[in-house]
Structure formats: structure tokens, C-alpha cells
């Protein structure tokens, strides 16, 4: 499992402190973490729309998790219309999946990132203007 946990979505790595606020990623059940990891790869364009995603067998064997857990994670994405099953072939990324995931994550962006960003900034006495100039500087 070490491999998989190191492979967690970037958001938990870059904003380590926000977990105590709204993101309970490390506390999430394995199947949810798996679903999020697949979503991340779709967002990053590693799993392209209408292309095949790894099968539950591949996920189960590679990450050493129970196939029922792997299937639960994938089914979560099926329910949300992000991947679909082609009978006898495997799981594929739905067209429009990337937009769907982006829309879902945009709605939680403020709570997940901005709130924790401001929280950390407060601890470090970085004021709003400093943050804004940092953001502008990074562009």
C-alpha cells in the first residue's frame, strides 16, 4: 500500500495543513481514495476520454487491495457517469468526464484550498496583499 498512499492526489501534499479543516483525505476509505486517484489521472489527461482505465483486477493486484474494494471505487465513478463498462472489454472514460470532474472540484475549491491557504497565512502573519502578490508573481 505504500506505493498507493505516496501517490495521493497532489492537493494533500501541497496543502498538508488543510486536512484538519475540510479535507479528510487520509481518513477516507480506500475505495474513495482510489476513485479520486482515477479522477486525478483523468483530469491530468493520463486517462483520456473514451480510453480504457485499468481493470479492477489490475488495480487489485498492483496496489494489493481486495478486489471488492477496487470494484467499489470504480463503481462510484460509474454512478457519477465518469467511467462506463463495455461488456467483456473493460472500463472506459466517459466523454465529458473531465469537465464533470472539474465542475465537481471547482465547487469545493474554495473550501478545500482557499480556506486552508488563509488559515496557514494567518499563522505565518502573511497578509492578503502578500498572498495576492505571490499569486501574481507565480504567473
Amino acid at each position, binding site marked *: 500500500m505504500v506505493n498507493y498512499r505516496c501517490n495521493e492526489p497532489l492537493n494533500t501534499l501541497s496543502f498538508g495543513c488543510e*486536512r484538519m479543516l*475540510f479535507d*479528510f483525505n487520509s*481518513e477516507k476509505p*480506500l475505495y474513495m481514495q482510489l476513485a479520486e486517484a482515477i479522477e486525478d489521472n483523468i483530469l491530468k489527461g493520463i486517462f483520456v476520454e473514451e480510453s480504457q482505465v485499468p481493470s479492477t483486477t489490475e488495480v487489485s493486484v498492483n496496489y*494489493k*487491495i481486495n478486489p*471488492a*474494494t477496487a470494484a467499489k471505487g470504480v463503481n462510484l465513478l460509474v454512478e457519477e457517469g465518469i467511467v462506463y463498462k463495455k461488456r467483456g472489454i473493460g472500463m472506459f472514460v466517459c466523454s465529458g468526464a473531465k469537465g464533470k470532474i472539474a465542475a465537481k472540484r471547482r465547487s469545493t475549491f474554495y473550501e478545500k484550498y482557499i480556506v486552508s491557504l488563509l488559515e496557514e497565512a494567518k499563522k505565518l502573519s502573511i497578509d492578503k496583499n502578500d498572498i495576492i502578490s505571490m499569486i501574481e508573481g507565480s504567473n
Partner: protein
Amino acid sequence: MGLIEFQNVSKNYGQVQALTQVSLNLEANKIYGLLGRNGAGKTTMLNILTNKIFPTVGQVLLNCENVTENDNAQTQMFYMSEMNLYPEGMRVGQAFRWTKEFYPNFATDYAHSLAQKFGLSTKKKVKALSTGYNSIFKLIITLATNAPIIIFDEPILGLDANHRDLFYKELLAKYNETPQTVIISTHLIDEVADILEEAIIIKSGDIILQQPVEQMLQSAYTVSGEESKVDEFAADKKVIHQEMLGRFKSATIYGECHSEERELAASLNLDITSAPLQKLFIYLTN
């Protein structure tokens, strides 16, 4: 009704009661973890199931048939026992052939390919194998029997990290291809937690919990931060483990983490993480 049913099984060794009215239902084609401390009764249960010893009271059924002295039931199961039952001087390859006599579905080619992957020489004498390779030898035989029920007793005893990794992957690859009922008896819990579907916790001859692992993991969580804040958070909760590092404290709490707890933790500036199964196990079996 389950595939395997323990019905009120007790076992006494003289004055010592090893199992006390154990009732248990196992379904087909799931991976179960039988978890308990040394001497909890894990092996006694498996020995009764596989007809090595008899229950003092009660019975164990497989597909509704009593397993005791029942050849038909026994050939459905393969138990990787802690004991070495192979004749003195037998070589690994011979042991494969010998096992096929008793388990006709034994996959000889598969056994040889596993031996190669693990670096086990089939020409070696079984008695001459190191502790690690003795475990590997028994793991390979168990995986290759193709019995509908396979039972591992402390499967990773003496295995190095690479071989443990290989074992988990091979077990899951086999299970994904042809589902079997798998029972893994161990006290190395965090290692197997992710591959189990259900965990059975046994303590002093008593089954104290049988639950899907996912559900079990959600019955506890760890909260950490500044000592006084953690104490404030935990004041009305059941703390099952705590650690201190200066003024930093982490407390593992038995109970589910609802939004109420999350909000309180957030307002106290505390971090919430999941609790490892091993910690929960230590608490439950202490």
C-alpha cells in the same frame, strides 16, 4: 446460510478451554482474516475445521455437512499448516507430485512457475529449506491446490519484504482469476488489512468481532494537535491509545467520526487521520 458454519463449538484441552461456544458463518469466495493474539484459539479453530482435532462440543459444517471425519468435505479445503507434514528427504518437485495425488486439481505448471518467481529450487529437499523458503514452499502448494477453500496460517513467517509483496500479488492475481474462499490467520494485521474483505477477531477462545474491514476501520480515528486541545476534544470520548511528543499529543478514539466531531476538531485546530487496524486490534484484544 454460510459456506462454513461453526455452531456452538467449544474445545477443551484438559482444564484449559481453548474455544468457548464459537459460532461463525463464512460465505463462499471472500477473503477472510482470522486475527487474534498468540494463544487466542486461531489454530484450534482451523484444526477443528480441517479435522486435525475434534471439538469437545458443537459442530462445524461445510455446505451443511459436518466436516469431522468427512473426506468429501476435507478435500474441499487445503490448510497450509504450521507443521511440516511432508516425508523426510522428499524434494520440492516430488512434494508437488505427491500433493497432486490427494488434490487432483493441483496445478503443477503453476506451482513450478511460482517456484521460479520466488527463486525456490524444486530439486532441494524440503527438510533443507530455510524458514523463509519453507514458508514459500507451503504457500506455493496452497495456492496451486485449487481447492475451493484455502487456509493460510501465518503465511508470511520469515518472508522478506520482496517475497511478501510477491505473495500478496500472486494471491490476489489467483483470486481475481478464480475466486476461492481464502482464510488468512495472522497477527500481522496492518500488512494484510487491505487485501481482506472481512476480519474476524478472536480473543481468548471467543469471537469478539466479525465485520468488513472497511467498516472496522471507520470505528476508530486518530486526532492530534496541542495537548490541552486534544484533551478537550477527547474528554467525553473513549480514548484507546495515546502518544505524546512534548506538547504535541495524538489520541486514538473508538467511535465513528461524524461531522460534529470534524467541526469540533477543526475549531480546536486538530488534525484527524484514520486509525490503523492494528491499534484497534490491540485495544479490542487487550
